């Protein structure tokens, strides 16, 4: 049913730290590797070694340059499904293929019901859904439901593949419906941002903006002059400079 649940018991999602992300693409490839054998498998690649490689990815990292009056910085920006509380991608679905789970708030696609009309991809402002031309159905991030509840994995690995892969700890997974969960606290402390909040999708994922850098007063002492010194070092310098 593409009507949304009135409430969800939990609201699982990610807190993504734009301060720590170094744009290494580890989350991207790890996501692809896990999910091409996971719930939404396969993540089809078309022409992978050719002129115009194309394919389905659930997580893509953009790079931006932010320029303000006082500074400019490079920011790496991972973009994936935000598992919104009001996901229009679900409500526009005519077939009931898209749904939001009441138990944990994860937004999923039932591939066996999808007719491939692509309307959900139009309804998502974040570009989270990608169509698989080969299979003819829409695909999207599952928040790794086949990892986070997977009792065959050691408990510390029961997190989405992107979170497990991140070498800088920029991705955090948890329950945003619990105000005391680690992600909720982190998001609160760092001023976590809802992307395009004005559209009213109420995304679950939060982006932690880059911290302010210490800059301005430059108190580092100037380097010592090397030329014209006397003493032993001066003698060595003159000797080597011949």
């Amino acid at each position: 049913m593409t009507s949304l649940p009135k409430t969800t018991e939990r609201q699982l999602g990610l807190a993504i730290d734009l301060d720590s992300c170094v744009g290494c693409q580890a989350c991207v490839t790890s996501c692809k590797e896990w999910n091409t054998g996971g719930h939404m498998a396969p993540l089809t690649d078309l022409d992978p070694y050719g002129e115009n490689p194309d394919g389905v990815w659930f997580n893509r990292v953009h790079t931006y340059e932010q320029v303000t009056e006082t500074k400019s910085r490079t920011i790496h920006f991972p973009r994936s499904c935000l598992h919104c509380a009001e996901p229009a991608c679900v409500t526009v679905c005519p077939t009931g293929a898209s749904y939001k789970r009441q138990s944990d708030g994860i937004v999923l696609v039932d591939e066996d019901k999808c007719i491939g009309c692509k309307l959900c991809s139009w309804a998502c402002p974040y570009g989270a859904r990608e169509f698989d031309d080969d299979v003819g159905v829409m695909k999207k991030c599952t928040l790794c439901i086949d990892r986070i509840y997977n009792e065959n994995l050691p408990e510390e690995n029961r997190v989405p593949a992107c979170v497990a892969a991140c070498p800088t700890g920029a991705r955090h997974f948890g329950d945003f419906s619990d105000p005391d969960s680690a992600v909720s606290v982190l998001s609160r402390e760092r001023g976590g941002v809802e992307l395009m909040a004005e559209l009213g999708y109420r995304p679950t994922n939060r982006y932690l903006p880059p911290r302010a850098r210490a800059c301005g007063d430059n108190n580092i002492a100037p380097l010592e002059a090397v030329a014209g010194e006397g003493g032993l070092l001066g003698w060595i310098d003159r000797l080597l400079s011949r």
Partner: protein
Amino acid sequence: MHPAKSIVFFTTLTGAGYGLLALLGLFGVLGLLPAGGLWGAITMAICFGLIFAGLLSSTGHLSHRERAWRAFTQWRSSWLSREAVAAVLTFVPAGLFALGWVGLGEVAGWTRWAGAVAGLCALVTIFTTGMIYASLKPVMEWHTPFTVPGYLLYGLMSGLSVLTAILSGLGHLPDGLPLVAALICLLGFFWKRASWYYMAHQARLPSVNSATGLGEGTVRSVQWPHSSQNFLLKEMGFRIARKHRRRLRLIAQGCGFLGPALLMVLAELLEGPGGSLLLIFAAALQLVGLLVERWLFFAEATHTISLYYGLGASSS
């Protein structure tokens, strides 16, 4: 947005077909439809032909047509599902209306009421088509007060042009109908111009700052996540060349609105078989013009995903 041929044909043809059906309902109640089963058969064949061709074209957009029946199930939340339901339900009263007109040879009694109900259902169907697009917040050019009235107006306008041509061809043209149709074409023209004006001046929201959560300063895309095209760019990053847009807009205005209006006025002056030919040509010309108009409706629309890729808006 990528202008898929299947959807361009679908919305244009069903718009004209359901618009025609809505007007047949109205004309039936007003007693303006000619008696005679043959006349009914010809008219309803054209009406159903337009609708069927459009609906058939819409299935061309689906990858899994064998599952299309599922699209009738989610009418509680989905405008696309509502449209599917309305499009099919309309055939109940419309079928009765056609049976009555063709079988009994006149539009009277219950046939008249079946026609009226069919007409109302047809209007609801066009409304739901418009709502599919108007309800999409990420596409600012569609999420405006102009979209739904536009769909209704262009549907009724093209339906009236077709009906005028049919009634003229059958020799039952009510006095002054071509002039009324010409006026509706002008109304359509002004609505299109107003929509474009609104599109050009509406605030471009959201911003790239809001999309990335980077509140202050200017945010510029310096590197994409991938080196070639992907689904998002092909489907939602479509951009139309400025010079093409100018020409296509001229074609849409000329063929979709002003040309047919001029032909209708000429037909009113000319009368006779020459006038009928002009009216038939006007209706056909309008359908071509509306196909271009609908292509532009998609091609000029921008999606918020273009913010992430740093693609400039095409419509300003």
